[in-house]
C-alpha cells in the first residue's frame, strides 16, 4: 500500500480540501482507498461525506494512582517524573497527581519502592471507522476536549490502517511539531499544501526543512493561486522542489466547500488534475510500487 500525507505548516491553506477531493477522485477512479483524518484536534474530513459510523474505539492513557497509606513521601516518584505531574508536600503528607500533565510513561511506578503506585486508564479520545456503502472509507482520530497531546490518538489511528486498502490519504494536523511529525513519518510521500502569501511561504519553508530532516519525499500544491504574490513559485524553482499542482482561487469553490460539498464532484478537470498528481507521486523513483 502507499500512504500519502497531506500537510502544511500554516493552518487553513487547504489540507482537508486537497485530502478530501483527492480521496473522492481516487474512489471515483475505482481505487481501493481510505482517508485517515489525523488532525485529531480539529477533525473535519467526515463532514464532507455521507458516512455511517461502523466502529469506535476509545484511546486511553495510564495515569498513576497513589496509595497514601503505603506512600512514605520519599519523593522518588517526583524525582523520576519528567513532566512535573506529581505534586508532593512531605511535612503535611500531601501527594497529588496532576492527570493533565502526566504522559503515562510509567517512570513513577518504577521509582516507587513501597508498592504505593497503581495505574488507571484515562480517556484521551476516539478512533472511529466510518463506512461509505458498507466499505471502510474513513478513519478519524478525535481527541477529547482538554487533552493536551493528540499524539497517542493519532498513533492509534495510524495503527489501524495497515493493509486495509491500497492507498491511504492522511489528512495531517498543521504545524511542524509532534502531531505533524507523527503523521508524516508514517507516510511514503508528503503533499505540502500552501498559499501564495508571505505567511504561506514562511510556514512552507519550515515544513520543507522538517521533511528534509526526516528524509521524506514531498511535493507542493499551491492553493488559492492568484491571491498574494509569486514568491512561493520562485522559492520552489530555486530549491528544485516539485510543484504538483496550482489550484486557482475561486469564490465558487470557497462557497461550495464552506457548505461541506466537494468541488471535485462538479469539476471533472479538478479530478483529472488530482489523479495526475497521484500518478506523478507514483512515478517518482522509490516512492511506491503501487500504480493505479
Amino acid at each position, binding site marked *: 500500500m502507499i500512504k500519502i500525507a497531506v500537510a502544511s505548516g500554516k493552518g487553513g491553506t487547504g489540507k482537508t480540501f486537497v485530502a478530501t477531493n483527492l480521496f473522492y477522485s481516487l474512489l471515483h477512479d475505482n481505487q481501493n482507498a481510505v482517508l485517515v483524518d489525523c488532525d485529531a484536534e*480539529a477533525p473535519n474530513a467526515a463532514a464532507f461525506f455521507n458516512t455511517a459510523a461502523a466502529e469506535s474505539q476509545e484511546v486511553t492513557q495510564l495515569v498513576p494512582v497513589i496509595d497514601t497509606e503505603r506512600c512514605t513521601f520519599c519523593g522518588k516518584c517526583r524525582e523520576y517524573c519528567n513532566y512535573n505531574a506529581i505534586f508532593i508536600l512531605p511535612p503535611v503528607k500531601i501527594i497529588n497527581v496532576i492527570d493533565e500533565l502526566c504522559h503515562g510513561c*510509567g517512570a513513577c511506578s*518504577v521509582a516507587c519502592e513501597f508498592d504505593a503506585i497503581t495505574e488507571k486508564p484515562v480517556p484521551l479520545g476516539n478512533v472511529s471507522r466510518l463506512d461509505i456503502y458498507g466499505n471502510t472509507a474513513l478513519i478519524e482520530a478525535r481527541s477529547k476536549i482538554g487533552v493536551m497531546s*493528540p499524539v497517542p490518538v493519532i498513533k492509534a489511528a495510524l495503527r489501524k490502517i495497515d493493509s486495509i486498502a491500497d492507498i491511504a490519504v492522511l489528512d495531517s494536523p498543521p504545524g511542524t511539531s509532534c502531531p505533524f511529525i507523527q503523521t508524516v513519518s508514517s507516510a511514503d510521500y508528503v503533499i505540502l499544501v500552501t498559499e501564495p502569501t508571505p505567511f504561506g511561504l514562511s510556514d512552507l519553508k519550515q515544513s520543507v526543512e522538517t521533511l528534509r530532516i526526516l528524509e521524506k519525499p514531498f511535493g507542493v500544491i499551491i492553493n488559492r493561486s492568484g*491571491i498574494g504574490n509569486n514568491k512561493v513559485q520562485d522559492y520552489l524553482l530555486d530549491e528544485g522542489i516539485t510543484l504538483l499542482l496550482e489550484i486557482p482561487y475561486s*469564490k465558487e469553490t470557497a462557497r461550495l466547500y*464552506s457548505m461541506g460539498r466537494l468541488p471535485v464532484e462538479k469539476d471533472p478537470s479538478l479530478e483529472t488534475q488530482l489523479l495526475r498528481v497521484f500518478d506523478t507521486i507514483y512515478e517518482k523513483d522509490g516512492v511506491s510500487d503501487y500504480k493505479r
Partner: protein
Amino acid sequence: MKKMELAIISGKGGTGKSSISAAFATLNEQVVLADCDVDAANLYLLFNPSNDEEVKYISGHKAVIDYFLCTNCGLCVDHCRFDAITRDKDRVAISGISCDGCFLCSRICPENAITMVPSDRSMMYSGSFRNGKMVYGRLAPGEENTGKLVTMVREKAKAVSKEYRIENIILDGPPGIGCPAISTITGVDKVIIVTEPTISGLHDMQRAAAIVLKSGRIPSVIINKSDINPEMSDQIVEWCNENSIPVAGSLPFDTKMVEAMVNAQSIYEYDPENRINNTIKDIWYNILNDN
C-alpha cells in the same frame, strides 16, 4: 481601564487570527504583541521587530544509546511506553520521532548505556516594533513541547509589559485545541475565537469554545470572511446565541487583507479607510471597556 491580556485562537487554522491580531496591535500606540503560534510564527514578518534578546529554549530530550556499552538485554524495550525502542535485527534501536523524553530508559539501564540529549535548537526572541514590544518563539523544525515554549513567551510578554508600563498584551494563538492552545488561554483576561463561515470553521469553533468554557471563561467570537457563506454565518451566530457566547463582530472577505500581508502591514496601516477597520476598532474598544 485596567491591564488586559487578550488571547486570540481559532480551532481551525487560516481563519485570520494573525491578520486580526496585527490590526488590533496597530490600533494602539503601545502594545505588547506575543506570537504564541510557535511552530508557525508569522507576525514578525509583518512587523520586523528589533532583536534585542534571544533565549535558547530546551524543548525536550531524546534518548541515545551507546552501543559500546549496550549488552542488548532489552530492559529498555520492555519499559518504553511510547513504542520508541524496538529490537532492530540484533540490536536495540531508539526512534527519535517516537521518543517522548521521559528519561525512564536512561534511569533503568543497568549498563548506563543510554544518555538523554537535550534538543536546544528552538529560540525565543523579544524586541521592539513600530507599535510597542514584541515577543515570539520559534520552534526548531521537528521539535516538541510547544506548550512550554508558549508559557515562556507569555512570561516574557508579561515582564516586558511591566518593565515598559504597557497596559495591553495581545497573544496571537496557534490553531487546534491541544497543549499550545491551552497554554495560550490559561489565565488570560479575554479570549477571542476567530472563525469563518464554513462547516469546518463552525465545528472547530465549537471545540475551541469548549476548551475556553472548560477553563471557566466565556469567549467572544469574530466571524471572518462572513460573506463567503451568509447562511453559514447565520448558523454560527445562532449557535453562539444558544450557548450564550457573544459575537463580537463579523468581517467581510476582502482581498485587501491579503494585499496588506504582502506589503508587510496590517489592514489598518495598509488601507485605513477600509470599512473593515471600523468593525475592528469597535470590537477592540468594546473588549477593552468590558475588561
